[in-house]
């Protein structure tokens, strides 16, 4: 018998005795009765988010400030170009990495810098030497200040995590309310053919492993900038 069948066999054998449902036990903190069916709507318990775009944008901005994400609402392409150029100038970017996409194409044309495209196979050390990685995304989540992206929407796995500065370009209608909405959007967009990697990025890379003191840029980007147009 294969190991798979043995393990499954042991599981089935073990499950012949039923375990009490949580909440039906006595004791402190256990007094809430179990629901009839497994709960699927978490909205009423997760952190509250307002309905209008302005409320969502305000919450995303507040979360970004806490996470040390640089979040900027831009009105149009001209403003985006100005801000990107200012950023490139301030940090002295010499080379950027990006992927093909409507907004990214605009961005690298606007910047006029040498560029590495990760659309096809690329050289790893070349990507590592880039000053910034510019990507699009699938969604922004107001509730947590997160960026949702996948290998398909953001030029693979490494582009958004290897360069020291990750710049995200998003549309206004990508700014979603909460986490359930984000997962629904992923399901809706990719359905039965999911990309091999999907990620929620919440702020620049961080660690607190030394005396619980926050340090940014542990392994991933030290900076995260989100432009929402």
């Amino acid at each position, binding site marked *: 018998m*294969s190991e798979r069948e*043995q*393990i*499954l066999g*042991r*599981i089935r*054998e*073990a*499950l012949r*005795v039923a*375990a*009490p*449902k*949580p*909440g039906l*036990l006595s004791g402190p*903190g256990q007094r*809430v009765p*179990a*629901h009839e069916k*497994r*709960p699927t709507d*978490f909205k*009423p*318990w*997760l*952190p*509250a988010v307002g309905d209008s775009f302005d409320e969502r944008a305000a919450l995303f901005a507040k979360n970004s400030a806490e996470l040390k994400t640089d979040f900027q609402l831009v009105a149009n392409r001209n403003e985006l170009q100005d801000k990107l150029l200012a950023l490139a100038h301030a940090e002295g970017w010499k080379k950027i990495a990006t992927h093909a996409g409507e907004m990214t194409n605009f961005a690298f044309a606007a910047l006029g810098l040498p560029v590495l495209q990760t659309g096809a196979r690329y050289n790893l050390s070349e990507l*590592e030497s880039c000053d910034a990685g510019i990507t699009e995304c699938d969604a922004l989540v107001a509730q947590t200040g*997160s960026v949702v992206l996948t290998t398909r929407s953001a*030029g*693979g*796995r*490494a582009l958004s995590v*290897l360069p020291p500065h990750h710049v995200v370009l998003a549309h206004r209608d990508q700014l979603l309310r909460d*986490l*359930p909405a984000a*997962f629904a959007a*992923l399901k809706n967009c990719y359905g039965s053919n999911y990309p*091999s*990697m*999907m*990620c*929620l990025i*919440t702020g*620049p*890379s*961080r*660690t*607190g*492993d*030394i*005396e*619980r*003191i926050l*340090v940014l*840029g*542990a*392994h*991933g980007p030290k900076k995260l900038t989100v432009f929402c147009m």
Partner: protein
Amino acid sequence: MSTIAQTFKETARRLTRDLRHRSLIQNALGKYYVGRDEKKGRFQNWQEARQAAAEIKWEAVNHLDTYLQEFVKKIEARGTKVFWASTGQQACDYIVEVAKKHRVRSIVKSKAMTGEEIHLAQALEKSGVEVVESDLGEYIVQLREEPPYHIVFPAMHLTRHEISDLFNKKLGSAPTDSPEELTMIARRTLRKKYCAADMGISGANFAVAETGMISLTTNEGNGRLSTSLPRIHVALIGIEKVLPTLDDLALFLPMLATVGAAQMLSCYNTLIGGPRQEGEADGPEEFHVVLLDNGRTRLLADAEQRDTLHCIRCGGCLNVCPIYKNIGGHTYATTYMGPIGSVLTPHLRGLMEWKHLSFASSLCGACTEACPVKIDLHHHLLQNRRNAIRCKSPWWEKLIFQGFVILMNRPLLYRLGVKFGWFGQKFHGLIKGTKIDPMYAWTQSREAPQLALHTFKDYWRRRQS
């Protein structure tokens, strides 16, 4: 008493009196409590969220065969190789074999408690492969050649000065007392390792059955890098990690971050459902998922404690446990420490050798209150005690209780006993606090209470008359 229990007692006794150790733990956890409570407060209803999380985990664990098969079917469909391992040895052998087959020379590992559990790094190193822990805390304890101190904060027992000395000695870096500098030293060293590694090893926080994906949570981005750059990715996952649907993550990810690290959401929550797919820019050519039993089905068979398999390894119960805070993580000498470790270890490694952990508890219930998936931890500690006594009850304890029964059933004898006790206690002073004192465990550091000459019964009778 077994030598394991003996060592446990001795280390515990030493560390509870160590003021420096205490201040380190308090410093680390003090900030955590403030942040955790603030994040909990943002939930509209934390208790309902806990209940929902517990019910979802109950559903998954109590239909484990169904969900595991769904998970495997979906993840295999995208070209993932799945290996089922009944024991840690089988899992190690398989991963060593994969490494050999692909001529792997160096491996970057992101944090995985399952790896600690089966001593994976040691097995790989023995076969001649270099294994580098990439989580900063794990990297620090790896350089010190010791196990992690905490499930989530592996290096919480060290000061920046100790870490600076360590880096100076092992990496030749200049001494510094800035955590930022120290982090950057590790970043530079590990960057080279990432880019050169042939294989990445990770664990998983969740395995989503509906879509066939593993969910990996890190703050540093090491989980992202070690699953993106190397040409092979191996994920070592306990079979209990399955969740029914993708949407469930909308609840579990923020709960894990809140209790685990006092954050609303951890920095990187990554879902991986296969190796690099057609048309994707990068990613590993091969993705292996190793499903680990290693005693979990034995625990599953114990319906009373089955909810222990709901654990999401957030470390929340360690952070509130008065025992953990006093004796620290290494004293347990187990992979999983704190209340969850005390409940789990007897199941994974044998009750009689590890029962002492269940006795080392104040039964205050703080762990149960803290648990985001409502594992009934402190009752499980009691059940372990009961089971241990059932296996082998100490004769002297039986004798004492038999004597107690006789005494309590005979009022005359009881009254005589109380008077005699009062009389006998006069002589207690001669041996009090010395090793021949039968009450030594108590009197070595405390005063013994005085028995009253006039009992309540005497008083009551006098009052009535």
